[in-house]
């Protein structure tokens, strides 16, 4: 509960300094009448034409119980993702709903889906700061409280912003979803998994009233943030734990190495599909020693085989 107070105060403080930023007559950011495709340097008089990078990004995934879940764009089972781009930034994110809420009668996918949809809308707002993905998560989390329809549950989240002016990527990660960046066949950046204890990741949550103290609720402040520059041809993969727990790193590297510098979205989509399918197959395999099984064994749990889970793969390459 206190995390909600913290987030409300953060937002209020940030916005009080420039009140009604949503209403400001700013001409710099193009909210509204213009289209949303990634245009380069539209309307901005940049004297030096430094190359502006952009993402070529694709998404693929599988819901855990594929047969029961009807496909809805933006979600794979309880996982959810979003992509958005503006003049100044390209943003991608995934969120993994914590499944334990089903026993309380709450749909776990609702929280994560809402989080991602709101992030997408917030990218277009005037107060979007391309250098603070934590703020994006915080604002999105606060929006949850302003919904008439009560949304309960919890989820992990990972948001990645490419600042097109400075060619840097800023990330924020809460929980066990994550990203890796591959350059020249090597992993150059990787997110850290945040867990309280085994199989209990950090999570943003909105518990049902009365259960507040019993429920793990991490504030957006506890997100792991990283910032690093990117170069042309870098491959960035954001995925939920369904991928990282089932596909070993060297296998992932093999697949991602091939697609470095690729600009053709069709080829990129094929790779994403490969990765997702790989994760799916391995997760259903009961003999394979997956990363999940290995880490379980480290925690003194005799596990074997993959971990059936929702799989979401967001794959992007940086193009100048």
């Amino acid at each position, binding site marked *: *509960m206190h995390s*909600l*107070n913290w987030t*409300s*105060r953060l*937002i*209020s403080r940030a*916005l*009080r*300094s420039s*009140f*009604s930023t*949503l*209403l*400001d*007559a*700013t001409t710099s950011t193009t*909210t*509204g*009448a213009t289209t949303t495709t990634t245009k380069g340097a539209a309307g901005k008089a940049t004297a030096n034409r430094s190359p502006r990078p952009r993402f070529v990004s694709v998404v693929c995934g599988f819901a855990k119980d594929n047969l029961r879940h009807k496909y809805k764009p933006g979600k794979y089972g309880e996982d959810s993702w979003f992509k958005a781009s503006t003049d100044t930034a390209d943003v991608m994110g995934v969120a993994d709903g914590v499944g334990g809420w089903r026993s309380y009668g709450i749909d776990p996918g609702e929280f994560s889906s809402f989080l991602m949809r*709101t992030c997408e*809308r*917030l990218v*277009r*707002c005037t107060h979007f700061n391309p250098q603070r993905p934590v703020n994006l998560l915080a*604002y999105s989390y*606060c*929006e949850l*409280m*302003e*919904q*008439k*329809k*009560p949304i309960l549950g919890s989820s992990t989240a990972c948001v990645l912003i490419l600042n097109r002016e400075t060619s840097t990527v800023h990330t924020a990660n809460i929980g066990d979803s994550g990203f890796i960046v591959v350059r020249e066949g090597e992993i150059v950046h990787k997110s850290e998994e945040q867990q309280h204890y085994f199989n209990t990741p950090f999570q943003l949550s*909105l*518990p*049902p*009233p*009365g259960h*507040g103290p019993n429920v793990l609720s991490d504030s957006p402040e506890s997100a792991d943030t990283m910032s690093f520059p990117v170069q042309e041809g870098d491959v960035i993969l954001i995925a939920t734990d369904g991928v990282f727990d089932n596909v070993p790193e060297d296998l992932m590297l093999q697949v991602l190495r091939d697609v470095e510098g690729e600009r053709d979205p069709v080829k990129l989509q094929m790779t994403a599909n490969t990765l997702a399918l790989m994760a799916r197959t391995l997760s259903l395999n009961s003999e394979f020693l997956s990363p999940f099984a290995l880490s379980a064994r480290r925690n003194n749990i005799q596990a074997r085989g993959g971990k059936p889970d929702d799989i979401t793969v967001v794959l992007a390459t940086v193009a100048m």
Partner: protein
Amino acid sequence: MSLLAYDGGVDDGNSSDTEPDELIDFTAMLMEQRQHGDNDGDCNDSSSWLHGDGDNKLQSQSLDNQGYCLGQYVLGVLDFSSQYGIDYSISYTAANVIGRPTKFPAYGDYPETFTMRTYGDWWQCAPSSMREIQSQNLPTLPTHDFIVVYFEKFVVPTEVAIFETFNPGGVVRIWAYNITKHWTCLWEAKSSDMIQPRTRSNYALRDSRRFAPPLKKTNVITKTLRIDFNHSQLNYYTEIDAIMLCGRTVSMRSMQQLIATASASASASAGLQRLDGGSREVTSGGPITNKLRTLKFQPSCRENYAAKLHEFINNDLSQFLIENNLEPGQQLNSSVSQTCLTDLPFEILLKILSYLDLKSLFRMGQVSRLFYDISTHPLLYGELSLKPYWQLTNSKLLCTLARRATMLRKLDLSWCGGFGEVSPTEFKKFLTQRGDNLTHLRLNSCKFLNASCIETVGIVCDNLIELSLRNCAIDPPLLNFSCLANLKNLERLDLFQTAFESELLLSMLEGNRKLKHLNLAFCGVSVNMDNVATHLGTYNTQLVSLDMWKAHFLSARGLQSLARCQHLEELDLGWCLREATLGDSLHQLLSNCPKLKKLFLSAVRGITERDLVHIATLGKNLEQLDLMGILNITHERVYDILVHCTKLQLLDLSFCDSIMDRDLDVIADWSRLFNVDIKSSRIYNAR
């Protein structure tokens, strides 16, 4: 009697008169363009409308035909009177009007739209309702809420389309802000235009609509629009997804010409069509004088004004009318009785004029000296409301009114001066001159207010009983420190959507023990509501209504303190307590405040089933109950409430997901059986 028939007179407009040339040209030019507009019929045929004839010398300076048709969505929001969501959110707030429609043509209650705070006339029936000041000024369909939006390019508007995605039918007026800095009304609803009055059947499937009413043919060039809403016929909240402005662009040159023409004529005529009566003192005169001149009527009014006019009206008027062919030869003064309006005693005339709205009162003052004296009598200016004339109010008007309003008691300057027409200095002067006896002061959405204005209010108006400062949410807050600490007699304080410092509020609460109505909606994270509630429970036990919509940091403790205000009739705790557990506090409140008529508990998710039982048993006088988004409602509890709260008129059960879809039909039956208006949401599928 048609002094307004100028089709006969306009050709003589260029004759040898002493008027400044710009004035005549402007009027005639408008005439020409209006004639051209009528002759063309189809206003989409833009070439002739903009071109005009080449041979008419007035049209040779007309607009070029370089314009192209343009449809644009809102670029930004300048002002709004109320919104459902809080300012830092993007759900149900005014910022959602920006850009393309996100949900249209789907129909439903979506957070990606713009919603206002009120619907129907439930707020007028509540204990906290405010009576309108000088209500005769209000038009038939008064404006309840408005939003001012701007677009990217200047156009001459041909169509304004409003995308309504939930409960359409709230729009009553569309205004456009000309580049000559005047507001023009492009469209006004008539009572027949409004959607059918709400029936008990909330379940008739409505549809989203793209509302594009027929606009008045004008040649204003605008990129700023103001949309006025009236909620009285609405069933539930109305939601707007987007606004589109279609029109023809104009070249820069013609825009500059128009500005130049307008400013020249404005200075010459000293307020053509303006509200202030000051224009009649200037020798060039207003439109009536001009028309009189074109009809070859030149009274020599140097001295003995009243007598000459009186003589003319009694003796020569009938002849004059026959000569000018305006009356079909009727003899006016033969068989008609000799008593006329001016024979009535002064006080009777005063009483008659007291029913007039302000505009008509000013017009009356232009009739004769006698009526000027009557219409400027201070007794007619005891209550003054410039809210319906927000588009005309300026510093000069305030100055004029200051001269007459010596007995001013109630003042409503809401919505005025939004674009700098009223200067803070003029307002302060007005207040210093006439403010000491003020009992009611309303300054909602007044953009000209600054810190010194508020200080003046605090110093001068210490007899204030009611102070309304809605929509003043600038940063740093306008209301700070001790500026209003001098006010000790307040009974109503309205700070809806206004930023203020909490110390000021707490000290005002301590100072005004007779406070009855308090509105602190949207005060946000800067105010700790628990403290406020404790103060209320200690110092303001006479409290009748309290609105804490979307307040923060209210907990069970605060609610318990509120229980000490035993005269409470209205309590709005919407979105306040959020997930906080209430414990026993609601039970205490309900038992201590038996007079409670209106209780809004929207989205107070911590309400348990026990609380609902208490509402049913203890809420004997409840008339309006809002339980939107409460998680644990079952239809048994709803039935309990309906049975026990016999005076219930409104029950809002939207987004109560525990009530299954099948129960909604049962609830419809109960709504008819118990005669209660029950609002519920059905799942609306996207088209």
